[in-house]
């Protein structure tokens, strides 16, 4: 595979009419080749993320048409080994509103550029909890839920179901390990004891021998309530279901899964969003698409309500109590003023239906139950947002 070093995709959507306000947003993406996995059934679509951005620009433009506000989206994609900072500098020369679809290291590198000092950057692809914690940045907001928000949501479900005996299988990829560590923190947070954990180290072809290997691999767990699989790259997890020694539900990265978004979310008017997305992209909306959509809709909502397009005004409004975004999850979406994370319910889904949506009933919070998932103000070590 060969990657061209410079910008691959370029997409500008100029809008007709005498616009008084022009909001220009740049979608900057690092093309990360997916790690090799046992099955090729589900390859990531080539327009993952950016398709959500395009839909949101269309949504914003429709509103803007009635207010004399226009929106333009530029998109740049750089190769896995290319210089993202250079592309970010070029993008920031044209706008201070950036959507960043890149791994955590890149996110920090871009946020720390001198050119990005007064910019407003949305992280739509890096779930790393540290970006919402000690490594937060004042110019960086997150519409993608953190890994901890997802594992907290699942832990709430375990508490509700009284599933307390919870062994785990963790893959070797860094994202698998991060999910496993976060899951253990979430279990502890909700008063559950993490169960025994086994590392997945097979290199055999599980398409042929999962039914032979997985029962033996899981036999040692003895009796338990549910199995947690930490397999964020979707390598082996699909072969665990129905092959375990004990007939028990599989949760985590497979089976019952906490997600930012999924095609099975159809309540709260979500069917309309799903339809609009499918019309545009000819596929189902995924969490990164939703995060990109929410980021640009957030900007659109802030432009609509303030009439401004500069990063400082928009950021102040987005973090203020006046801001709220209708996001088809049944509650208004807002941003945590202490670390820039978008507050959002977390759907718990299986491939065919929504099972539950965290925060679950009974998990109380003095301000909003949405802050029972993810880093709450007293937990977050983020200081960049201090007033």
């Amino acid at each position, binding site marked *: 595979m060969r990657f061209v070093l410079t910008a691959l995709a370029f997409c500008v959507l100029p809008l007709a009419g005498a616009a008084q306000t022009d909001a220009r947003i740049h979608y900057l993406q690092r093309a990360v080749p997916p790690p090799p996995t046992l099955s090729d059934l589900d390859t990531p679509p080539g327009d993952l993320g950016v398709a959500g951005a395009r839909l949101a620009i269309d949504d914003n433009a*429709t*509103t803007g048409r*009635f207010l004399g506000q226009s929106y333009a989206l530029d998109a740049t994609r750089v190769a896995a080994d290319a210089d993202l900072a250079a592309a970010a500098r070029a993008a920031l020369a044209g706008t201070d509103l950036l959507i960043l679809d890149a791994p955590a290291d890149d996110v920090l590198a871009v946020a720390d550029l001198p050119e990005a000092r007064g910019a407003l950057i949305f992280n739509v692809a890096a779930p790393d909890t540290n970006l919402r914690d000690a490594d937060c940045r004042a110019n960086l907001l997150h519409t993608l839920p953190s890994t901890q928000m997802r594992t907290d949501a699942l832990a709430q479900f375990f508490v509700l179901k009284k599933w307390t005996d919870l062994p785990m299988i963790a893959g070797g990829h860094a994202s698998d390990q991060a999910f496993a560590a976060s899951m253990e923190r979430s279990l502890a947070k909700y008063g559950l004891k993490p169960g025994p954990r086994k590392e997945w180290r097979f290199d055999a072809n599980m398409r042929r021998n999962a039914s032979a290997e997985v029962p033996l691999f899981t036999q040692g767990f003895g009796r338990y309530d549910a199995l947690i699989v930490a397999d964020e790259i979707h390598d082996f997890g699909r072969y665990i279901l129905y092959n375990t020694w004990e007939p028990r539900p599989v949760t985590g990265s497979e089976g019952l899964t906490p997600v930012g978004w999924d095609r099975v979310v159809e309540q709260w008017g979500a069917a*309309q969003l799903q339809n609009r997305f499918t019309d545009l992209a000819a596929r189902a909306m995924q969490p990164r698409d939703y995060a990109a959509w929410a980021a640009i809709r957030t900007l659109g909502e802030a432009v609509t309500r303030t009439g401004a397009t500069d990063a400082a005004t928009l950021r102040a409004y987005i973090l203020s109590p006046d801001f709220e975004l*209708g996001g088809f999850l049944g509650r*208004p979406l807002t941003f945590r003023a202490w670390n820039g994370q978008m507050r959002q319910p977390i759907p718990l889904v299986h491939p065919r239906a929504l099972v539950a949506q965290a925060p679950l009933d009974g998990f109380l919070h003095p301000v909003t139950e*949405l802050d029972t998932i993810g880093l709450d103000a007293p937990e977050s070590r983020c200081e960049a947002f201090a007033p």
Partner: protein
Amino acid sequence: MIPASSFPKYLGGSPKDGGQRPPSPARRNPLPMIRAACIATVLALPAQADEIWVTNEHDDTISVIDTDTLEVTRTIETGERPRGITFSKDHSVVYICASDSDAVQVMDPVSGEILHDLPSGEDPEQFVLAPDNRHLYIANEDDAITTVVDTETRTVVAQIDVGIEPEGMAISPDGTIAITTSETTNMAHWIDTATQELFANTLVDSRPRHAEFVKDGTELWVSSEIGGTITVFDVATQAEKAKIDFDLPNIHPDRVQPVGFEFTTGDTHAFVALGPSNHLAVVDAETYEVEDYILVGRRVWHMAFDADRARLFTTNGISGDVTVVDVASRKPIKTIKVGRFPWGAAFRPTN
């Protein structure tokens, strides 16, 4: 009042109707007793009872509720995903938004048969019938369009570009202004019905769902589901006049989501459905203060009054039922099981 014509029917009616009624304080005064017996007799004649028609979004049916017995008397099949429902001014036909059939269906309410479909544009969700009893203004949810249909010629008269996910529809009593609210664009779009063009667009809070002209068309009320408010506009200037907030004890504000609302006689009070908070609010339409909250079924969305607005029927989507509320006492008096996801409600007089 009981119509005079029903009195002879009582005299000639079955003794069962009057004879088996339990003793009550009314016995001390014979007149109310006779009146009660008259009601019982009228009940025995189903053709004379008024009806509430409820669309069941996920059953593709309409449940017809008898307003006297408070029971479902008929279940009628419709096109796919019925939502908005309204009767013609003379109640000779009923219009139904069959959203997933991409049609507005015209039904004979007596036989329950579909007479024909109207062209509606894609995914019709809500509509309003103009005072001329001829033009339907239809919100096409998936297309960001309002379609105007002539119900006589069965043709599309105009299509108007509006915001994303149009839903709430209203028309002024004189028919000069039509309103579409758009759920994702968060606006009320003001349509001049003479030109079928927009003449104003006003922002409201997040996810506007329902709009009504009140007080002889001098005020426009728009509910915002996610914003949790109702915005009141002065129609003459399209300026915001008031904003109504709802504050339910022990329920997080996020779950207080106003959707449908209707007004009592004289537009003195609004009954507002608050969605997943499972409550109605009663709002004084002069002071804009909330006076009461009434517990009803789960995820309450729309509603319809009976003939004299003494009772209110709410559609409760998640519990799949209709709550009957006594307007004077502001108390729920009965829950009626209907189909899956009841959505819209409309009143049909039969006298």
